[in-house]
């Protein structure tokens, strides 16, 4: 018995010792782990502080650069103003008659002053563009119109050089439309035309051709001049990269024109290049400059890749000018719009067209907005169409009327703020039931894991999908359109800007609520380029992942709230 007890005790002691040793080992290991984590944490902290200070430093540098450019611009122009003015007055002969030699000298001085002014303008222009400080004013443009205007502008120069400008008509059906900054695109066209004219022999012609290439359009300016040597075909787009060193002087250019063109085209996500005509398989001398930029593909073609076809927004208001203001705004943002001045007509149109949402005035003669809402809700065909009230009444005044609250999904007060109207419409178009579908586009897997973890505990309210590239994001948007997009700007296969551009071309996605979660501060210009539906900007350096969570949850609740919310101004 004793032996047995001793044996039990010994084995117990052995067991306990083993456990103790194991515990000790575990303890030591966990302490090491703690220390390592601690070290990693401090390293990460140092790294983040380092990044923050680098960010601050960059901002400061940008400010200094801005000021410098502004000052240089002013300081150079001030003496030039006196010189140019004095020379201009002298060479005009207004200050007294000059002999031919003196007149010629003054002409030389005047011409070169003009060239210097153009050079300064071009350098500043290029610098502003490349530093992202020259915002694009994007509008829907018809290519044909821009070509006509540019040719018009350059006609005087062409006539002086005895060169004919010919626009080769677009093939039937090639009505090319794109989203771009019309002034900037025209600047590119004028520059290409002016180059072509300058390098063309008298009596020759310069042709402008346009065509479609998939989702892009291509514009060509074809001259029959001396042709760009094959080894210069790329370098002519560099700053001061002329074919012959004296070209800029002789031809009155600055040597920066094509560099500016390339910069503008790049801002429009396009490409510009030159080819020798003889390399294109023709016998002709000369050069062809080509420009390729994304175009707006007709709605029918888009529908093939998107889930549902594009419906219209119905605008109901008896005030024609108010209606036009709303309609214009919606057209500018690519919506198909139906409009009417009366409630009766609105009922008919809503029942017989694919209407995605109704923007409705309350005070109308005949059937009022209130009555129209009631009738819309009584008809099964129109009951589910979201209604946004567009009224001089404030939402607070409107919410006293309970049936109105229950039957409308949004509210915009007149006179309306354009971005608020677009945001409210976007919210209404993406409202739905069930958990909010969120698409997280983030290439940093660690950060994505943290964000995802934050949402996991809330799985009743949101379902979140994570992708890490533009391509994957496009696929996810097509197969399962999200309610909210969280977007990092730097991605392996392109930028967040490219994804936003693509989304803007998708009828069902262009009003998607968006959270831009970027590694750097976004400039106001970039904010404009990134705006979809209701859009929020968060800088990683300034917010914690749980801030993203809070914001997205607030957006989901906003989307899922069936009653009228006073718009947060």
């Amino acid at each position, binding site marked *: 018995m004793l032996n047995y007890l001793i044996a039990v005790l010994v084995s117990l002691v052995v067991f306990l010792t083993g456990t103790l040793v194991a515990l000790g080992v575990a303890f030591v290991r966990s302490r090491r782990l703690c220390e390592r984590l601690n070290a990693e944490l401090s390293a990460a902290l140092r790294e983040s502080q380092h990044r923050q200070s680098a960010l601050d430093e960059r901002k400061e540098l940008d400010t200094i650069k801005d000021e410098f450019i*502004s000052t240089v*611009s*002013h300081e150079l*122009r*001030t*003496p*030039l*103003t*006196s*010189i*140019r*003015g*004095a020379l*201009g*007055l002298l060479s*005009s002969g*207004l*200050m007294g008659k000059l002999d031919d030699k003196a007149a010629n000298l003054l002409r030389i001085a005047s011409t070169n*002053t003009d060239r210097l*002014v153009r050079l300064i*303008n071009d350098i*500043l222009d290029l610098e*502003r563009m490349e530093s992202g400080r*020259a*915002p694009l004013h994007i509008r829907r443009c018809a290519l044909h119109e821009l070509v006509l205007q540019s040719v018009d502008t350059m006609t005087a120069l062409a006539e002086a050089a005895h060169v004919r400008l010919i626009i080769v008509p677009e093939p039937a059906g090639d009505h090319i439309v794109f989203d771009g900054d019309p002034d900037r695109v025209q600047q590119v066209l004028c520059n290409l035309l002016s180059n072509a004219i300058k390098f063309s022999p008298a009596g020759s012609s310069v042709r402008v051709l346009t065509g479609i290439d998939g989702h892009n359009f291509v514009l060509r300016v074809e001259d029959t001049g001396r042709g760009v040597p094959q080894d210069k075909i790329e370098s002519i787009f560099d700053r001061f990269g002329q074919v012959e060193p004296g070209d800029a002087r002789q031809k009155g250019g600055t040597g920066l024109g094509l560099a500016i063109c390339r910069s503008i085209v790049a801002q429009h996500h396009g490409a510009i290049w030159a080819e020798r005509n003889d390399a294109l398989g023709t016998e002709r001398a000369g050069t062809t400059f080509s420009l390729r930029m994304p175009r707006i593909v007709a709605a029918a073609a888009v529908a093939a890749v998107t889930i549902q076809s594009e419906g219209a927004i119905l605008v109901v208001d008896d005030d024609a000018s108010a209606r036009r203001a709303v309609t214009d705004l919606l057209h500018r943002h690519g919506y198909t719009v139906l409009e009417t001045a009366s409630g009766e007509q609105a009922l008919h149109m809503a029942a017989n067209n694919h209407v995605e949402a109704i923007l409705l005035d309350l005070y109308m003669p005949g059937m009022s907005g209130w009555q129209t809402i009631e009738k819309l809700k009584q008809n099964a065909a129109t009951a589910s169409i979201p209604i946004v009230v567009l009224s001089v009444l404030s939402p607070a005044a409107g919410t006293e009327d309970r049936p109105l609250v229950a039957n409308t999904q949004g509210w915009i007060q007149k006179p309306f703020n354009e971005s608020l109207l677009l945001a409210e419409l976007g919210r209404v178009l993406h409202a739905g039931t069930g958990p909010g579908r969120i698409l997280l586009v983030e290439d940093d897997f660690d950060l994505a894991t943290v964000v995802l973890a934050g949402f996991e505990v809330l799985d009743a309210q949101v379902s979140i999908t994570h992708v890490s590239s533009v391509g994957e994001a496009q696929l996810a948007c097509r197969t399962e359109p999200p309610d909210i997009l969280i977007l990092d700007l730097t991605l392996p296969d392109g930028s967040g800007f490219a994804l936003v551009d693509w989304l803007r071309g998708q009828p069902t996605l262009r009003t998607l609520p968006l959270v831009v979660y970027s590694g750097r501060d976004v400039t106001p210009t970039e904010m404009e380029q990134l705006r979809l539906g209701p859009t929020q900007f968060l800088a990683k350096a300034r917010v914690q992942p749980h801030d993203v969570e809070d914001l997205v949850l607030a957006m989901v609740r906003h989307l899922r709230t069936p009653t009228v919310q006073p718009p947060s101004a």
Partner: protein
Amino acid sequence: MRRILIIDDEDDIREVAALSLESVAGWTVCTACCGADGIKAALSELPDAILMDVMMPTMDGPTTFKEMQKSPELAHIPVILLTAKVQGVDQRRFAGLGVAAVLFKPFDPLTLAEQMSVALGWN
């Protein structure tokens, strides 16, 4: 005959602009070299229009313009700003001030008067 007040701190630019308006358009020109002098000159001369530089020491063009707007004698005189800066932000800022026009340096001395006439609706 039109009477113009030019306010610019650069002697040379003042002289060239004055010569240009006098010899090309035949207008009468008086000048001032800073905002404060400009306001005094405007009060004594009551010109038909004022051509004023934007960047001036002590009191810049926009500030001078705002001061002028406070004076009942000067508030109705149209002011054209002349700027050497071309940054878009500046243009928008000036446009919001309520000046008659913003012209850019360097100006063409032969067409300066014409540009001003167009901006002021003078024919």
